[in-house]
């Protein structure tokens, strides 16, 4: 299963997920408390510098992951240009960019398994109270397994449709797609039960 963690080694890879997330919380809070443009320019530049530490590949991958924000940035720019408050707009835009970039840094340097371990640790008190968290762990594994299978089935259905029609199937495949998936689910449920259940 593909994940968003980076294959490029960074010095902070080995830090514990909990530590990185706590630092992220503090950093994001500080970002939201400050309204100074100078502060936000420095914060963003520092953030880019951190991305540059593991090397060029890490930096370009990191920056590319911010590009989906362009639409939000355009909206901020248009609004603040019209209301002649461009400095405020720049603060809002930079703050959003830095906050997302810092959070992505945590995502890029933390493996999914470490995050799941952290969730497990957070759930410890619930287990002490007698609540079973194992179904949750099995559910995660099932989603990771189902997603690529569903995508494959979806493309097979689309291909089958295209072989018969010049039009694109769009929403029409959703029903057969869901039916296929549900039939599969029944088999998986039986298999789980046959192996001792949850």
């Amino acid at each position, binding site marked *: *299963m593909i*994940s*968003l963690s980076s294959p490029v080694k960074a010095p902070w890879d080995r830090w514990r997920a909990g530590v990185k*997330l706590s630092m992220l919380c503090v950093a*994001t809070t500080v970002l939201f408390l400050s309204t100074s443009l100078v502060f936000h320019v420095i914060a963003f530049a520092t953030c880019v510098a951190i991305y540059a530490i593991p090397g060029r590949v890490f930096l370009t991958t990191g920056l590319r*992951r911010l590009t*989906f*924000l*362009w*639409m*939000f940035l*355009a*909206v901020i720019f248009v*609004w603040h240009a019209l209301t002649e408050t461009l400095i*405020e707009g720049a603060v*809002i835009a930079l703050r*959003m960019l830095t*906050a*997302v*970039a*810092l*959070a*992505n840094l945590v*995502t*890029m340097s*933390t493996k*999914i398994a470490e*995050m799941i371990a952290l*969730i497990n640790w957070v759930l410890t008190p619930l287990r002490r109270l007698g609540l079973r968290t194992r*179904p*949750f762990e*099995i*559910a*995660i594994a*099932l*989603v*990771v397994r*189902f*997603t690529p*299978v*569903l*995508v494959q089935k*979806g493309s097979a259905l689309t291909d089958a449709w295209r072989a018969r029609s010049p039009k694109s199937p*769009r*929403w029409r495949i*959703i*029903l057969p*797609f*869901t*039916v296929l*998936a*549900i*039939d599969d*689910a*029944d088999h*998986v449920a039986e298999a*789980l*039960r046959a192996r001792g*259940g*949850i």
Partner: protein
Amino acid sequence: MTKERELVLIALFAALIAALGLIPKINLGSGVPITAQGLGVMLCGTVLGSKRGFLAVALFVVLTLIGLPLLSGGRGGIGLLATPSVGYIIGFPFAAFATGFFVEKWSGNLTLGAFIGAVLGGIIVLSIPGIIGMAAILEKSLVVATGYALPFFPGDLVKAILAGLITNALYKARPAAVLSRA
């Protein structure tokens, strides 16, 4: 209904939302993309019902936030909480809950019930945290943020109609899978 089947259906619908994200998306207004994923959230409610629908969508959200690229356009990670979409992401499970709750209470025509439920949960309930999130991150008033949300409503309405039709057709094809009617 065995515990295993319940768990597998919850995981399956979480994966279904992810798979629906691969249908091409369109950006509108304030940059929040319109995708079939919204339809996936509605279907979780109309098909699985309130509690299981909530769990399926919550599972999807948790996996996305810990770094699986499941959101449309291959997005994922904790950084989503710092974008203007934050309210929608957090609101997704509650939208599914509200949708499912309505469908469970409705005893009339399933297509209509699922449509109304999807409008109620997937549009109205979802828009409340969605608009608050946009207002907070973009530092705009709630009125302006509501303006940003408006261009999505026609698309959402189409999705709610589809949710109604698909739920009813699914009920005919696999009645045992439509847990909101079980």
